[in-house]
């Protein structure tokens, strides 16, 4: 098994005909992802990458039976795109777009609360269940099917961890990049809960960074509800306070959001906390007793 995305996932691409959408949809198809079609307003009725293009998401859902959507729409229109997907009944919405205004996401969040949809991202690499489906921009070849679940706020730092796991022969059940923005659809706790419930996931890697308290909340959840081994890392131990470190959500505000507090909360919860990202793979191997 895997979580959220598998071989039954039938995907739409919003922003299908743009440069990013075209390139990454092609990469996903090459991996074997079932792409049903795409949406670009005004280009409905045409064909792109041998798939149908629709004007609206609801029309695309009606005609293809798609159940997931990946969004490559520019930041000014991306929150709209999320809402349109939810309105059309899409169950899994993955928003790759970086740079969405925070108050647009506040509106999208309120809208999602009234719909039966799960959002991953925005500002994320997406989700991959190796060997089954890839919905996002991660390099496919570093992944390998297996039993480690990975959840992270970062893109390339996730690749770093996945690369180490694969090199050690440890495959992954599902890897989710939840995104570097302050307001995101799926948080660490959500992902960890799903990994705990997934029989095919035997260990969990949780990668966080400075800003907010999502890692502390996930640690509290893990302490009470998670029986599987969890290995963690927090980026930004040397980040200066008050500065936004690349990601919109990566900022120490006053006394909150510090790496040291997150690491301490994770240790208290029985998580193996790595001092450096170079040891994530090794620690997982140890915790699995391999």
């Amino acid at each position, binding site marked *: 098994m895997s979580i959220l995305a598998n071989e039954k996932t039938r995907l739409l691409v919003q922003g299908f005909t743009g440069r990013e959408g075209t390139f990454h949809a092609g990469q996903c198809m090459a991996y074997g992802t079932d792409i049903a079609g795409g949406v670009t307003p005004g280009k409905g009725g045409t064909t792109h990458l041998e798939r149908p293009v629709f004007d609206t998401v609801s029309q695309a859902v009606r005609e293809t039976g798609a159940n997931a959507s990946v969004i490559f729409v520019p930041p000014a229109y991306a929150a709209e795109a999320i809402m349109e997907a939810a309105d059309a009944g899409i169950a899994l919405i993955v928003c790759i777009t970086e740079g969405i205004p925070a108050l647009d*996401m*506040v509106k999208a969040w309120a809208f999602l609360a009234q719909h039966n949809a799960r959002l991953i991202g925005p500002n994320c*690499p997406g989700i991959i269940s190796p060997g089954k489906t890839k919905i996002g921009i991660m*390099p496919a070849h570093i992944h390998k099917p297996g039993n480690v679940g990975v959840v992270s706020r970062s893109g390339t730092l996730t690749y770093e961890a996945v690369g180490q796991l694969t090199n050690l022969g440890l495959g992954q059940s599902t890897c989710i990049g939840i995104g570097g923005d302050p307001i995101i659809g799926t948080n660490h706790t959500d992902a960890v809960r799903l990994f705990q419930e997934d029989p095919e996931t035997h260990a969990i890697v949780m990668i966080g*960074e400075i800003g907010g308290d999502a890692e502390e909340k996930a640690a509290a959840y893990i302490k009470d509800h998670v029986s599987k081994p969890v290995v963690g890392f927090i980026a930004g131990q040397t980040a*200066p306070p*008050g500065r936004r470190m690349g990601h*919109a959500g990566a900022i120490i505000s006053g006394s909150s959001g510090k790496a040291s507090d997150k690491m301490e909360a994770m240790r208290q919860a029985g998580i193996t906390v790595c001092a*450096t990202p170079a040891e994530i793979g090794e620690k997982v191997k140890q915790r699995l007793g391999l």
Partner: protein
Amino acid sequence: MKIHEYQAKAILAHYGVPVPKGKVAFSVEEAEAAAKELGGSVVVKAQIHAGGRGKGGGVKLARTADEAAGIARKMLGMTLVTPQTGPQGRVVKRLLVEETLPIDRELYLGVVLDRALGRCVLMASSEGGMDIEEVAAHSPEKILKEAIVPGLGLTGFQARKLAFGMGLPAAAVNGAVAAMTALMSAYEAMDASLAEINPFILTKDGRTVALDAKINLDDNALFRHKDLIELRDLNEEDPLEVEASMFNLNYIKLDGNIACMVNGAGLAMATMDIIKYAGGSPANFLDVGGGANAEQIRNAFRILLADLHVKAVLINIFGGILRCDTLAAGVVAAARELNVQTPVVIRMEGTNVDQGRQILAESGLNFTVAAGMKDAAEKVVRLAQ
């Protein structure tokens, strides 16, 4: 993006938040004229993008326009050091000259984005005039919060809960409610990421006024606020950071001597961390992004090396979309063009890594190639010594 107090107050006043009468001054003459116009008794406030100005001597009272001119003469051009500026301080180039008001009580108002709720939250406290972090640490019950329903805005009853909760006398509540409503409207209209009025005062004659104001804007929303972009003050930013921003490079200067160039924000932070762990000290944060091209890599190199403290450079790339061969070709071209003499350690992984390593090896340039992040950090720390 940060803006100055006088800019924040002008915006708040536009939306209907009462602020003291005041004028910005760029010279002693302007400060003196402003003080005269305001009746002589004024407060002179240094305008820098950092708090704690009073403690550093950046806020002074004057009884006459002459006195105000004297204060302005000392303050303009002075290096103001506050707990938030760091030891190097900031040079004062602008002043705000304001009328003085008879203060009865100092309160607090603030708007932030609550990540967990996914909503904006208006906070109010009876304990104004001090660091709100301290209030939160010692008496959290004195910070009142109301979450704002998107599309609905701040409702009257929420504002009244806060106003009465802060202990305002009934006669002042309507004024405070109007000020809070205006503050929330301003926050939403300009896509702020933080708005703080500290202190929000009750005057002896029963009015509520924003005596100070701090507003940060959401960088992601600036594309729809051309008027607000003009409020950016480049004097308040590090020159290298300003230059990097022109090339869409995410660069933050730090005080160490090992420069780093990384793709992705999380990996860039983790690279700084591992340099520290190996016994070194990072000179910067730099995320070149997922789609960096040769020109961006050249500019990134130039900016890194413009920092004279830099003794060695670590390039750490996990190639996904950015292929290792593209990166290696860019690095080789930049190193040749800029005649780089500083030791460079390169760690690459991911797409086309073998071709990338070959390009580096055949370049004839003195690069040190590392096998993983740990190896890279240890090597660069050794070279920086």
